[in-house]
């Protein structure tokens, strides 16, 4: 009897430990996500699209509030200046000055490239997913670029509308700064890799200021995002996340 009790105890202990590990993994992901995002964010990015034959650079201004709302204004190059994007929940609108029209991005365009980069429109819309749509598993700790990092596996929940088979993410142990994320298909082939680089203080936080997205199926295809300046948690006017602002933003 005693022996049996011991067994049940052990079982409970293991289950508890797993649950704890899971909770902990999710908590790490949540903190890393929060670190990059803030309650609100206002910043300027440079984006460089790299192809084997050419590369192209552009700049845009970015506003976001939580995971629900974001707004983008293209600043450079001249030909694309003034183009704006508004995202509210999982819907997205686009304004193009040259044709003076607001376009709602239809489902058929959600998976197309955003502004010619390796990001899709869908990547912008579905930022929140890393916490809600995945099961998180703690794989251990690993040294990456000289820093000790948590290694966490994210597996999409069965009903989640996610194309990935799994994501492996490395997050720096000391300050929850994400270092790297590998995206796999269900066969276990790596499809793309996200690298977080040039970690420094900006906008009052220690954050990566250079992100590189590598297309593993098309070697040489890469998109680099460089954060030029950023302010976190400063309230943003309500009027920013509106249709009117799509047309007015300069």
């Amino acid at each position, binding site marked *: 009897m005693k022996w049996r009790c011991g067994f049940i105890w052990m079982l409970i202990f293991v289950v508890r430990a797993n649950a704890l590990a899971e909770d902990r993994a999710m908590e790490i992901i949540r903190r890393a996500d929060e670190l990059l995002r803030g309650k609100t964010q206002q910043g300027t990015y440079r984006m460089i*699209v790299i*192809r084997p*034959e*050419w590369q*192209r650079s552009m700049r845009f201004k970015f506003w976001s509030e939580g995971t629900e709302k974001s707004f983008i204004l293209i600043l450079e*190059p001249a*030909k*694309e200046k003034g*183009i704006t994007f508004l995202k509210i929940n999982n819907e997205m609108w686009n304004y*193009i000055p*040259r*044709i003076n*029209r607001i*376009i709602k991005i*239809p489902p*058929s*365009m959600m998976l197309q*490239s955003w*502004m*010619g*980069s390796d990001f899709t429109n869908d990547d912008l819309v579905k930022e929140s997913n890393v916490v809600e749509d995945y099961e998180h598993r703690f794989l251990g700790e690993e040294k990456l670029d000289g820093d000790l990092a948590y290694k966490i596996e994210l597996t999409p929940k069965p009903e989640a509308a996610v194309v990935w088979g799994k994501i492996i993410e490395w997050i720096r142990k000391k300050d929850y700064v994400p270092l790297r994320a590998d995206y796999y298909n269900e066969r276990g082939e790596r499809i793309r890799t996200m690298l977080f680089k040039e970690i420094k203080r900006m906008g009052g936080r220690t954050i990566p200021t250079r992100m590189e997205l590598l297309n593993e199926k098309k070697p040489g295809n890469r998109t680099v995002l460089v954060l030029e300046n950023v302010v976190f948690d400063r309230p943003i006017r309500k009027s920013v996340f509106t249709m009117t602002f799509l047309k007015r933003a300069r």
Partner: protein
Amino acid sequence: MSKFLKIAWRNIWRNRRRSLITMGAIVFAILITGVTRSLQYGTYDALESYAVRLLVGELQLQNKGFHEHQTLTYSFPENLFPWDRLVDEYDFVEAYAKRITSYGLVGSASTSAGAMIIGIEPGRERRVTHFTTQLTAGETLDDADDHRILLGKSLAENLNVAPGDTVVVLTQGYRNELGADSYIVKGLIRSGNQELDRALMVMSLRDAQDLFSLYGRITQVVLATDDFRLAEKYARRMHIAMDGQELQVLPWQKLMPELLQLIALDNISGAIFLLFLLLIVGFEIMNTTLMAIMERIKEFGILQSLGVKPRQVSLMLLLETGMKIVIAVIVGLLLTFIFIQLTKDYPIPLSSELKEAMEAWGFFTDFYFTDKARVFLEPLVAISVIAVLSIIYPIWMASRLRPVDALRKGQL
């Protein structure tokens, strides 16, 4: 020998009616298979050349990789080669036109749809393809047009626009730039190809280069030649290279393999028809020949009892029927030729209802009899073979004839 020839010749005209009937069978067989083939090849040819010269053209010059990927990465400088020299250098090249083909989203006030966007040189394009001239409304593009477009009829219907209306276009450019612009609809195209009519959007090459940020570059050069059927041969003879960059020369057979398969299908149903036709006329030739000889058994009996050897009777019969076949084949071919010469300039009549319905969908309606060599050659071979086969048996029978039996029974 010449004596036999003379006898055979005389025999033919001795029973003129019988000879005319047997020869008539052959003449008719040649004529009707010839007309059938002329009709079949005429319609295939018309459909093929129409389909080839609708949009794709006979030959295309492309950068390697464009055919597979259809992206602007595989464009090339528009002055890579002095194109005017093509027409001088290759005697079979009759015209050329530069082109850009890509994809985008086109929107009207109410809705939007995906489109295949083609940038053309309007004047030159009309000399290599004819999709820009098949309009249901408005006018076609001119070389001077700026920000004017043609739309496929179904695409225009889906977008709910008509000539004079404005549409906007969103695309991704050569280096993934966002391309966006607005254009005025000038005309609507009805090509007869449903998929095309649902997707086609045509603008000037300049506008396309602007929209796709493809300055000084194009994706294809389309060529017209003197004979679309020889495109594969021509493609092998061409070599377009300049400054270390070589262009692929693709014949329409490679660009639209499904058309080749369609032709194969047409040939199958055509062949099934021909088979049944040959069955009927071939059998008739055999029957009349057989009968014509059988009715004369008594005559052969008399000849043999007069001392003519069976071998000689057979020889005489062979010469006689041989001459008949030759005469009939010549007459048959002549009649076929005359028939086709008389009809080939007039399109095959379609009922006016059908024609209207076909035109409403942009279907091709002008079918002609063709006078190409195969139309005469195929019946000539097929019918001659049948005719020769059909005389072997009766002549063999005649050679084995015993005079007594032949005289008594008058039949075999």
